């Protein structure tokens, strides 16, 4: 019974895949687990790992967020701009979290209240956010406070601080995943009409999901700022597609209602590791995207198919055992 719950969990295939990728990465480059190396890849991936949680919130409510990349970038350049204007670190963090909530609220209002299609609405807001980003800073530059950057790129007891920070993010996610809201969001995403008929305020739930997604976007933008230490209008643009790929590999359904944030993070880890491995084994940068793309596509197909197969198998066990107990009772 317990075992079945493990292997039929939507994130199980992604977990297996991430472990395989890690083992492979280690066999290629055993130095991957040295503190210095860990600092390197955890700081380069922290923003993506956090952003994928925002994407998960949007996907869970049968939405999608194509503005993740632009949102993270905007937070990044806006934070640097405020630092340059002399704001204190705490003030910048608060302001950026508010900015993230506002971005999320804008997406949420368009989708939940104005009922625009999520794909197109967030595509449109991504233009607006990209425009604002480029308006603030059209080329990489500026700098974040040294202390914060040093901290993010440092380590405690041999563990990179970026990873410790991410543990806090996961704890925060734990609250989301255990909330009453999460259950209601899953219901809304799985079947909006029936959820509404059941008395759920589906529009408000959708808006809330984007507001919370905006919070994770802001966190991601702040992490990028402190890890990279500068403002770059284009650094986080690929996040939009990478978060979708990561979430889907991690077992989050585009149809809404199924999946988990932890799975999505595992998926994002896999996506990130693949690129690192490709570089690690000395693939030419020109071939890298083609190879990584093929691996991701295969991984995606395998994971999604395997996930469905495991679920169907688990379900048939459930219904069969129901049939048998009925027979026995009779």
């Amino acid at each position, binding site marked *: 019974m317990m075992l079945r719950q493990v292997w039929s969990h939507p994130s199980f295939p992604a977990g297996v895949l991430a472990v395989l990728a890690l083992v492979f990465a280690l066999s290629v480059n055993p130095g991957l687990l040295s503190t210095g190396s860990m600092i390197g890849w955890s700081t380069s991936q922290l923003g993506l790992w956090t952003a994928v949680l925002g994407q998960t919130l949007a996907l869970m409510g049968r939405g999608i967020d194509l503005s993740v990349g632009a949102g993270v970038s905007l937070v990044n350049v806006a934070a640097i701009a405020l630092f340059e204007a002399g704001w204190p670190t705490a003030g910048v963090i608060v302001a950026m979290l508010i900015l993230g909530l506002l971005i999320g609220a804008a997406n949420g209002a368009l989708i939940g209240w104005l009922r625009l299609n999520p794909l197109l609405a967030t595509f449109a807001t991504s233009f607006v956010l990209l425009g604002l980003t480029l308006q603030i800073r059209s080329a990489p530059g500026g700098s974040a406070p040294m202390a914060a950057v040093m901290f993010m790129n440092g380590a405690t007891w041999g563990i990179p601080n970026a990873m410790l920070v991410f543990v806090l993010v996961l704890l925060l996610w734990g609250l989301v995943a255990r909330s009453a809201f999460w259950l209601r969001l899953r219901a809304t995403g799985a079947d909006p009409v029936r959820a509404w008929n059941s008395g759920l305020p589906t529009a408000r739930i959708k808006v809330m999901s984007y507001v919370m997604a905006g919070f994770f976007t802001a966190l991601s933008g702040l992490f990028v700022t402190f890890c990279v230490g500068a403002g770059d209008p284009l650094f986080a643009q690929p996040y939009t597609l990478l978060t979708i790929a990561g979430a889907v590999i991690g077992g989050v359904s585009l149809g809404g209602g199924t999946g988990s944030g932890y799975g999505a993070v595992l998926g994002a880890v896999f996506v990130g590791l693949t690129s690192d491995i490709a570089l690690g084994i000395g693939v030419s940068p020109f071939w*890298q995207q083609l190879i990584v793309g093929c691996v991701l*596509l295969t991984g995606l197909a395998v994971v*999604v198919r395997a996930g469905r197969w495991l679920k169907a198998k688990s379900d048939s066990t459930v219904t069969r055992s129901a049939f048998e107990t009925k027979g026995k009772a009779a």
Partner: protein
Amino acid sequence: MTALARTHPLRRIPHAGSLGMILLLLVAGRLVNPSFLSPMNLWAVLSVSALLAVASAGQTLVILSGNQGIDLSVGAIMTLTALMVSGMAGSSDEAVPLTLAVVLALGALIGLANGIGVRFLALYPLVVTLGVSFVIEGLALVYAQSQPPQMPGPLIESIGIGRFFGIPWLVVIGAVMTVLMTLLLRFTRYGRQLYLVGSNIRAAQMAGVPVTRVVLTTYAASGLLAAVAGVLLYGYVASANLSIGAPYTMMTIAATVIGGTALSGGSGSFIGTVLGAVIFSLISNLLIMLGLGPALRYAISGLVLIAVLFATSRDAA
């Protein structure tokens, strides 16, 4: 079932919303800059619209096919095609027929791969086409590395910027495409089956529609049409680079949806998409005429897109 047919008179004009929007944009353009309505600018806008319309033809088919159908690989296929035509045909016309045959076949094959992912692996179209586009971009990168882009030969260039009896070739091609697509959708067996599959795939299956064939054909056609659009784009821009096609992915979706094709599939028309392409191109043109920098152009086109979506395609309650 009692009273009937009290529809608003404007509703009876097909595409009244899009046509009104175009009129509005033309008037606004005239107010901003008197040369907006000059024949030169209008032909330029129409050329760009025709290019976008051709690129959107496949997208329209895929979105009509419903079941979350969407093709995010259009831009990547256009990029790869432009680079390959540039690399294979070079600056002469001799190799053009062979090159065209190769790139169109390749486009169709990529589309078929999308279709196989959607139909046989039962993955979400968004995910499949996104993954495939990532791979195709990688392929383009590798190809561009081995075959540096060149200038187009006279034939490709004249398709891109030449004229036929005073009408830009792009517009002529766009018009022909409009007629062909409309005939395809309304009068062929495939077209009618496509609407059925898009409207309700299970019902289509039960009625005996060869659903697999329809879906595979649709995605393959989308790849093929994207390749056609890539050739035209190369001729129009007269050079090729790695990001030349990328913006078209979302632009084709926007044009299709603004044109009244439901993202949920099963209803819409190609004429609508053409009008959507015209609207999209007019907006871009207008913003350039206003003399805005790229940053503000992005921001404003995003806001305008939101407004257009709000006016044309709210999801049903």
